[in-house]
């Protein structure tokens, strides 16, 4: 019944079919009766040839009566198969801007509300701190033992706001990159000094950094201002025009030669907002989105065609090169760029669709997920109030073949993904966790699923209804043949899922504890670090760092945990709960460090806060040992926010917007050297 109420179209169809069937049945009964009478009459008249056509006729009637049932069956079948996962290798081709306008109109007719996709905010954002300086060249080597960015996939670099190459520490400040000499073999920590400030130019806001032995890659935004005009300029004074300034930003990439004292080697511009970037060797992947206006003019559409430039030489996409994902809101161009940093060549691939939000890149493939709307059939004709039957996750897969990207496959699965860690590629299979949550009257229907998709993004297996009723997925981490999953509503079940057979994943072990982890990080092969929320009273009013022992997959246990109650510390948070790159971890050194900030209030000083780096030592026997809280200023009124830590050799470097300070990993609280950006 509920199904019918929610699907008025099916309901109407059902009534029509039933009416038709009733009429047909009446007709059939009438006809049978007449012909029976005829047979009797013939018998009475001593005429003994039965009606010849009657059987044929009855078959026809039977067929006619069954036809609506078949049609209904087919209809429901189609709907059911729509609810199933389907794979579509065909990314629809576009031929002109006019076609995009038609697609938009079509979509608007189906979906009349002004709803736009809300999920375009979750992009790779790195926070830049503040300040400036200059330095001198030291012809000395750095260390080989230093901390890389905490990447999800080995070999696939993610950009970060602070990077180090064992010698220099690179930080960002507005439109500059500061290069700080941090360590040399001869001077060690004493070498700490300003080396260089690289100016990125006007209208360039640094957003993230990559470093390798050849290139320093700075990714940022460039801004331009445009003015919009009223539709009808006549009679409108010019000073009234300014009701709608908007920014058309573009992603800027500047590449500096590390071997040539950070000389600018090349610069790129990619029109649009950033969805994400990755770097694999000397290949840089940049994904941007350009929101389209709702317009009637192809000329206006032309302006929004994705454009990029290499050292100020511009290239614009052709409509013929654009692909459209059917069913998606055609409101954005998503452009996938592959940049060969060596040859300065760019491969551009444009997709028209709804904005996507979670990016996962393996060494061979790019997976970008976003939402698509599954429309009721004939939604545009019937003008339904709820035309969307379900919002699904669209997975777009591109292959990385040398420096070329190719749209490969498209899949739709139920639910939405939480973050990049919801996805993982292993032996050609994509494993992905999703949560479906929708309100049906007073009931919230939740379904947490683990999908395994093959190379062509065909679903090979699904594990459904993970977690207890009402719980949603809070974090996922895939490590080889196992998936670790945290769901939460009141308690935190920590699941160990065996995914060694892609056809038959199963929950192998389970642990239930208060609080929940919003980030899971493998620590060696035997431990999983969980960072999230929990307090000593069994609630979530605190920060909780848990170390799970996962040696026995059937019986994971909490090996150790540390809890910071808000009631003891004031409100506190760690950025690791939402940004994995702020976590410093070294299995070899037994080191875990993460930013931690607590807020307090005193009647004399007003609100003040303490920001620093929590440093722990991990021992596989003793568990977690708290080694200290490294602050740059205590009870600061000013914003001295310690947001990052890195290690080079045996030294721990902590970075705030005002200082870089160095101590040893063994004794983090004793500051050996300090450099101010002031």
């Amino acid at each position: 019944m509920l199904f019918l109420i929610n699907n008025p179209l099916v309901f109407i169809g059902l009534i029509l079919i039933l009416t038709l069937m009733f009429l047909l049945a009446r007709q059939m009964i009438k006809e049978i009766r007449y012909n029976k009478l005829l047979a009797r009459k013939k018998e009475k008249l001593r005429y003994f040839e039965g009606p010849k056509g009657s059987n044929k006729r009855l078959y026809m009637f039977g067929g006619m009566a069954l036809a609506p049932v078949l049609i209904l069956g087919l209809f429901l079948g189609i709907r059911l198969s729509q609810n199933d996962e389907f794979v579509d290798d065909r990314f629809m081709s576009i031929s002109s801007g006019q076609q995009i306008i038609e697609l938009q109109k079509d979509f608007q007719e189906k979906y009349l509300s002004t709803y736009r996709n809300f999920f375009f905010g979750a992009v790779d954002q790195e926070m830049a701190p503040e300040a400036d300086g200059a330095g001198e060249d030291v012809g000395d080597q750095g260390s080989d033992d230093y901390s890389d960015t905490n990447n999800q996939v080995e070999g696939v670099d993610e950009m970060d706001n602070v990077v180090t190459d064992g010698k220099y520490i690179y930080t960002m400040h507005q439109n500059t990159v500061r290069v700080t000499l941090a360590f040399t073999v001869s001077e060690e920590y004493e070498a700490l000094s300003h080396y260089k400030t690289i100016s990125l130019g006007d209208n360039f806001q640094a957003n993230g950094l990559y470093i390798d032995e050849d290139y320093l890659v700075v990714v940022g935004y460039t801004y331009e201002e445009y003015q919009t005009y009223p539709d009808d300029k006549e009679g409108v004074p010019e000073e009234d025009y300014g009701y709608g300034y908007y920014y058309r930003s573009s992603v800027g990439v500047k590449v500096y030669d590390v071997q040539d004292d950070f000389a600018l080697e090349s610069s790129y511009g990619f029109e649009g907002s950033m969805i994400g970037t990755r770097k694999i060797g000397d290949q840089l992947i940049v994904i941007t989105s350009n929101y389209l206006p709702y317009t009637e003019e192809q000329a206006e559409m032309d302006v929004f065609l994705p454009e990029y430039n290499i050292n100020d030489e511009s290239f614009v996409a052709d409509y013929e090169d654009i692909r459209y994902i059917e069913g998606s809101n055609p409101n954005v161009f998503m452009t996938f760029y592959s940049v060969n940093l060596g040859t300065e060549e760019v491969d551009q691939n444009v997709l028209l669709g709804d904005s996507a939000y979670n990016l996962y890149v393996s060494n061979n493939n790019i997976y970008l997920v976003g939402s698509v709307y599954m429309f009721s059939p004939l939604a545009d004709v019937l003008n339904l109030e709820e035309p969307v039957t379900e919002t699904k996750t669209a997975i777009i897969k591109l292959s990385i073949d040398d420096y070329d990207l190719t749209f490969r496959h498209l899949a739709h699965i139920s639910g939405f993904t939480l973050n990049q860690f919801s996805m993982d590629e292993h032996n050609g299979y994509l494993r992905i966790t999703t949560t479906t949550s929708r309100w049906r009257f007073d009931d919230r229907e939740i379904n947490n699923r683990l999908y395994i998709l093959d190379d062509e993004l065909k679903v090979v297996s699904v594990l459904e209804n993970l977690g207890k009723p009402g719980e949603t997925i809070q974090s996922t981490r895939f490590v080889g043949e196992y998936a670790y999953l945290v769901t939460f509503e009141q308690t935190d079940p920590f699941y160990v899922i065996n995914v060694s057979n892609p056809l038959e994943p199963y929950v192998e072990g389970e642990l239930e504890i208060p609080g929940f982890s919003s980030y899971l990080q493998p620590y060696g092969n035997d431990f999983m670090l969980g960072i999230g929320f929990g307090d000593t009273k069994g609630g979530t009013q605190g920060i909780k760092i848990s170390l799970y022992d996962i040696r026995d997959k059937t019986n994971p246990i909490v090996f150790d945990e540390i809890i910071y109650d808000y009631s003891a510390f004031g409100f506190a948070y760690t950025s690791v709960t939402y940004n994995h790159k702020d976590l410093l971890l070294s299995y070899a050194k037994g080191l875990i460090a993460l930013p931690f900030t607590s807020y307090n209030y005193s009647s004399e000083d007003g609100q003040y806060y303490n920001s620093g780096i929590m440093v722990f030592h991990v021992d596989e026997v003793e568990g977690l040992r708290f080694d200290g809280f490294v602050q740059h200023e205590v009870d600061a009124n000013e914003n001295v926010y310690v947001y990052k830590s890195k290690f080079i050799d045996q030294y721990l470097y902590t970075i705030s917007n005002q200082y870089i300070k160095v101590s040893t990993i063994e004794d983090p609280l004793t500051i050996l050297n300090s450099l101010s950006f002031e």
Partner: protein
Amino acid sequence: MFKVKMRHLNEKEVKERLHIRNADSYKFVLTDDKDLTEIGKISIVFQEHQLPDINRMIDYLVLGEEVYILGYNERGEKRVDARNILYFSMDGDDLYAYLLHTSLIVKYKLYELEEMLEKKGFIRTSKHAIVNMTKINYIKPAINSKIELEMINNEIIEVNRSYLKSFKEALKN
């Protein structure tokens, strides 16, 4: 009209071979045993080998004498058993009798034929036509409360609304 009462023979089989059913109000009793005859009814006692004769007798009892219709076409005059005629229909001023493979012009009035052939299973279906019910292959009721008659030669004859009631009656009786 008949009642079949058997002692030695299979009653069902006999009914099938004679193409008759037992009626509630019957005049004739058909039996294979003289003890089963009934007072006040015409009883016919027969043996199995006489069944074909009984059959012919029943034919005569039911349908009466054969009626022959005189008509002509381009090949001359013909006299045909009315039971072979599918239907009569007016075409202009002429009345035609349609047979399976040919048609004849007959010099009767439609109402004369109607009266003459009533007992032979003919029924008026419209102002212009009389149909032999034994030559109807199939009856198709249409949605607009008309009836279409598919004749054994696949021609369709409509029963007009004003003749529908009498058609139904004739079918039932």
